[in-house]
């Protein structure tokens, strides 16, 4: 099984067919509060509440840990440390360097020391504070610079090369270097991390986990408990947001709750307080990106070198693949001529950074966009023209730094169309003229493209399973390995199944994701949810459908081609049968009405040692224009207008896709503007609550926002109904905001100096960049 049908065989659409703009399947449950999240489930009557204690040091030996006061605290039932783990004290998804409980040393401030279960959550929280822990401090490595000085890495330096960049740069008419510091980002899913473990008989364990990766959770819980995977069932109906933050970080809660449930024989719930969630769980990696470019007088690149330094935190987690994806996106839409991309993954005494929408892609991509702005400034051209002149094209300029040929490039079409519809050129001219006049308020504008590679770059993860049951009344249950975190995966896959059977979507019941229904699944990540699970569900549907066709063609004595599924009926040799009647008849004829489905992405391969191959099945594209204004006295700023043209192939569901585009953009805007993670010198996170960590609010959304799905989109690869992934790519449309802010800051000097602005561009960074640029221009600040 591999390929989706090109078109429907039928002419009449069913309710909820593919390509129709259905709202989220749980929308009515969301707005009424009826949608149940894990904390909303009725608690078993014996349910204990678990809490954990945090390390007070970023790097120290644990000399002593006296827990007597914890054990004596009111309501406490059980206290668990590393010594209580029957299996392996590790929850690392890739490498075993991620202990569940710190044992002899602590490696970041906030690291989990032990767990305490009590009759109430309040009792457990209070008790967890009563430990007497003695530390022997060691110097923490907090920043990328400190880790670099100490040669502290999670793996060897990674290098990706195309041609001989050093010599091409040396030969180029112009060379230029620059640096960009990029902050991290907290996921700030509105539903905090949570798990509820319920012990069963004979070592069985059911764990409700708010996770994007139930299979990984199942496996790591089993490891911690020292029992086989088949004893563990991990399930969830939905998360209240994930964004990558529940791909691996959720395991801490699931494993701790399961361990305690196994020890006490009672149900155990572990819900983190928001502050602890932000302190204890990983975030987007912050980067320092240095670059050197060689180019001609028009700004056309001959060679580029990137030096990417990545703060990984104390453990490996997914940092290797995240670092790789940053390298894969260091080119964005541009042919670099020749390239050398060097990546160093720093091990620091900070929380272990993890997956976050884009998975390193945004950090790589903003490097080249920063470079484009700097090069354009250097050659005194509109950055849009320099971008257009450097785009991938057919004439031999279509090889990426990892040697994949770009075969589906549509960014030029998107950019040219968007430049026209947004009136970019006239607005830019007006802004630059106005910026040269008096006034505190300066404006900026930028158009930036996105090309995002679709597939897990760890090739084996590109597989998925599904399980469809049809019951004798004709109602359908749909199971697959994908998880719902708000992105609308469930409704999209249900649409695929509705289309396959040509039944109204109301007939399809979307089931919770559970490891006992569909095993060995990959995380719902890498924007792959619909691509993989949609195909797997289609495979299952096609199997059942074929059984029905065989059954009907034999019974009615017609050819297979004369059995047509159409609008809740099955037309057999011109005779219309109701779907439910056929199902009932099939059951009586002893036809199996349940099937598994499976899918693996074709064509992809990758050699990590040489960093060459075809890691991506295809690319998703988009482009955005943002206009900003800044106050040069205070650094205050806002996005005035954003225009987006985004490509999703042939959308499975335009309403859902629009939501992903807008939401992704605004989240990306937050990363680059107000969302600032501050660690102090001792390695303590100082921004661990919404009072100090500021994600965008309603008024931060650009007052004018024009979003359009590109109407010419079509995936050249045979993906599910020729759609494209949409979860992550739009996040990077927000790079247009950072470029526009850079443009506005240059406006403070009448566009005579290219500013040194880093991300996130907070009011403070903008004001400091304005003053520095003015000093460089020999202008007095007011």
């Amino acid at each position, binding site marked *: 099984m591999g390929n989706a049908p090109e078109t429907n065989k039928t002419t009449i659409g069913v309710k909820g067919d593919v390509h129709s703009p259905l709202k989220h399947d749980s929308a009515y449950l969301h707005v009424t509060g009826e949608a149940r999240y894990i904390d909303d489930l009725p608690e078993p009557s014996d349910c204990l509440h678990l809490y954990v204690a945090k390390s007070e040091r970023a790097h120290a030996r644990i000399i002593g840990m006296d827990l007597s006061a914890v054990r004596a605290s009111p309501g406490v039932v059980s206290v668990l440390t590393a010594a209580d783990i029957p299996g392996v004290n590790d929850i690392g998804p890739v490498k075993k360097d991620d202990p569940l409980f710190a044992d002899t040393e602590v490696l970041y401030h906030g690291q989990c020391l032990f767990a305490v279960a009590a009759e109430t959550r309040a009792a457990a929280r209070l008790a967890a504070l009563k430990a007497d822990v003695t530390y022997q401090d060691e110097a923490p490595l907090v920043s990328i610079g400190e880790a670099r000085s100490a040669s502290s890495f999670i793996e060897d330096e990674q290098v990706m090369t195309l041609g001989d960049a050093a010599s091409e740069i040396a030969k180029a008419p112009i060379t230029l270097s620059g640096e960009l510091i990029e902050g991290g980002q907290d996921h700030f899913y509105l539903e905090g991390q949570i798990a509820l473990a319920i012990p069963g008989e004979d070592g069985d364990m059911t764990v409700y986990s708010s996770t994007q990766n139930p299979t990984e959770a199942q496996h790591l819980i089993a490891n911690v408990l020292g029992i086989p995977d088949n004893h563990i069932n991990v399930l969830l109906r939905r998360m209240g947001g994930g964004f990558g933050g529940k791909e691996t970080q959720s395991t801490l809660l699931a494993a701790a709750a399961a361990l305690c449930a196994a020890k006490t024989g009672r149900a155990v719930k572990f819900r983190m307080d928001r502050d602890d969630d932000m302190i204890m769980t990983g975030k987007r990696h912050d980067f320092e990106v240095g670059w050197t470019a060689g180019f001609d007088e028009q700004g056309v690149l001959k060679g580029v070198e990137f030096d990417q330094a990545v703060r990984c935190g104390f453990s490996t987690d997914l940092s290797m693949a995240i670092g790789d994806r940053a390298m894969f996106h260091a080119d964005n839409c541009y042919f670099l001529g020749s390239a050398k991309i060097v990546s160093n993954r720093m091990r620091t005494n900070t929380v272990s950074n993890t997956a976050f929408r884009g998975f390193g892609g945004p950090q790589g991509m903003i490097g080249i966009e920063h470079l484009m702005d700097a090069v354009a400034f250097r050659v005194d051209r509109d950055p849009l023209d320099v971008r257009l002149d450097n785009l991938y094209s057919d004439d031999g300029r279509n090889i990426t730094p990892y040697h994949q040929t770009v075969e589906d490039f549509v960014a030029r079409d998107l950019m040219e169309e968007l430049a026209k519809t947004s009136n970019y050129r006239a607005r830019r001219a007006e802004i630059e003229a106005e910026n040269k006049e008096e006034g505190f308020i300066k404006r900026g504008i930028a158009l930036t493209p996105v090309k995002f590679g679709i597939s897990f770059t760890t090739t084996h993860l590109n597989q998925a399973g599904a399980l469809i049951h049809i019951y004798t009344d004709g109602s359908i249950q749909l199971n697959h390995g994908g998880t719902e975190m708000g992105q609308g995966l469930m409704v999209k896959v249900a649409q695929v199944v509705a289309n396959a059977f040509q039944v109204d979507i109301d007939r399809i019941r979307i089931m919770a994701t559970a490891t006992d229904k569909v095993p060995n699944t990959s995380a719902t990540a890498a924007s792959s949810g619909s691509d993989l699970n949609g195909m797997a569900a289609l495979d299952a549907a096609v199997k059942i459908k074929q059984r029905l066709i065989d059954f009907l063609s034999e019974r009615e004595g017609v050819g297979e081609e004369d059995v047509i599924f159409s609008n809740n009926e099955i037309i057999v040799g011109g005779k219309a049968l109701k779907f439910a009647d056929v199902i009932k008849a099939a059951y009586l004829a002893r036809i199996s009405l349940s099937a598994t489905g499976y899918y693996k992405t074709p064509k992809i391969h990758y050699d990590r040692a040489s960093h060459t191959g075809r890691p991506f099945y295809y690319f998703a594209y988009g482009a955005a224009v943002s206009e900003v204004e800044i106050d040069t006295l205070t650094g205050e700023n806002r996005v005035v207008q954003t225009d987006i043209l985004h490509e999703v192939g042939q959308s499975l569901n335009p309403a859902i896709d629009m939501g992903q585009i807008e939401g992704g953009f605004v989240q990306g805007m937050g990363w680059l503007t107000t969302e600032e993670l501050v660690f102090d010198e001792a390695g303590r996170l100082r921004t661990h609550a919404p009072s100090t960590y*500021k994600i965008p609010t309603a008024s931060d959304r650009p007052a004018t926002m024009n979003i359009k799905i590109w109407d010419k989109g079509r995936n050249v690869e045979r993906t599910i109904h020729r759609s494209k992934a949409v979860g992550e790519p739009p996040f990077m449309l927000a790079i247009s905001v950072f470029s526009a802010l850079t443009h506005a800051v240059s406006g403070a000097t009448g566009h005579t100096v290219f500013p040194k602005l880093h991300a996130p561009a907070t009011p403070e960074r903008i004001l400091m960049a304005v003053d520095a640029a003015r000093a460089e221009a020999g202008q007095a600040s007011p």
Partner: protein
Amino acid sequence: MIKFVMNGEIRTLKACDPTRTVLEWLREDQRLTGTKEGCAEGDCGACTVVLGELIGECVRYRAINACIVFLPMLHGRELITVESLGTSKDMHPVQKTLADLNGSQCGFCTPGFVMSLFARYQDTDPELPKPVNTVLAGNLCRCTGYGPIQETGNTLQPDVSVQSRFGGSQTVSLLQSIHNSDAGEIIYHDTNFGTPRTAFIPTREEQLADLLDEYPGATIVAGATDVGLWVTKHLRNLQTLIFNGNIPSLKGIAQVNGGLTIGAGVKYSDALKQLASLHPDIGALITRIGSVQVRNSGTIGGNIANGSPIGDTPPFLIALNSQLTLASQAGERVIDIEDFFIEYGKQDLRPGEYVKSVHIPALAENLFFRTYKISKRFDQDISAVCGAFSIYLDDGLVKDARVVFGGMAGTPMRAKACEAALIGKAWESETITSACHAMTHDFKPMSDMRASADYRMKVAQNLLRKAFAESQTSGRTRILEAQ
């Protein structure tokens, strides 16, 4: 005994923990799980519920954060949760519109948005503008990017027949029946701490004074937008609490000699109209304090009494030379508000004393006044620097000046050296330059997660420059214009 109205009935809580939050009570005790916990500190709005309060013969509905409101604060009021509005089979127009416009993705923040929009839907006060972004500023959504939610707010046309489902005569009479009821002493034994906890809800100031005399260490709780976090975040054991939200005499706003006298129990939302009429900058500042939910809970008196080094009201109150009335069993005394803030964490409040009211004198004819708030995010953020400038001009000369900042020192503080450099000088750019320089002698600001010391100083100076510029030009000087 706490009494409040919920779903058309009077609910009575005989024995409850007075520091139990409304959110905990709803989710854990009542199993009403539609209201969510997102942050437990009043910053994300996932827990938004609506409180109804009797105003004359009508019920006024306002959104609040249930995560930092304690149960005794429900006393005499009506509580409405998302479950009260409708079900998935029979939705309220706010719910239906939000769903149909794709306003939910993960859905976790959604009930909170529904309740904020519902409060706006019920609000019939034509004088208060209700821009949708202002209404939504206290509700964080991480999925949608807000567009469909804004569209919901802009699309909804309140229908009287739907509005009248809430606040009708039956609710009014229920509220009237409990309005002045005496809650008595609320005693709870906290097994986690092994100590009793006592709470009072006085309805008259004399009771408040008597209670403070008897329990000088008691915690006065007004809006709990700060005290709430002592419990939810710091797990503090508050043993005696006095809730002052049911004392009518603390909730008055009066025009006195052209100025305003505002009772300590007046909520920001209730003071907005009159404060904005003093000066548009004050109105703009107030609408950037917290969020709608916070301003519906928080009081002007609480903002003063908690002695925050930042503000946001103290800088402008000091700049306008406001006076504070402090009261106790022994009587009342009036002090200049700037003298109230002694040092970080220490205010001029004697044992048994409470903040009664603040008086803002009329703005003089020759006063040039500005106040600004600088923060990382425009809405619902704590200031890095909050500045207020009162410049008294006489024929182009600065006759007197009050330059006050929050966020620059351990308390909201005047920049005396800066003021000295202004007073007696011509109001011109050379004077501003020397006054900005003088400001470096006034403050040694700190660096923290909100801003560096350098930025704070630079912005404080630049705000004076901005104020000066605004006195000279009518051109555009701000990203956000005062409304």
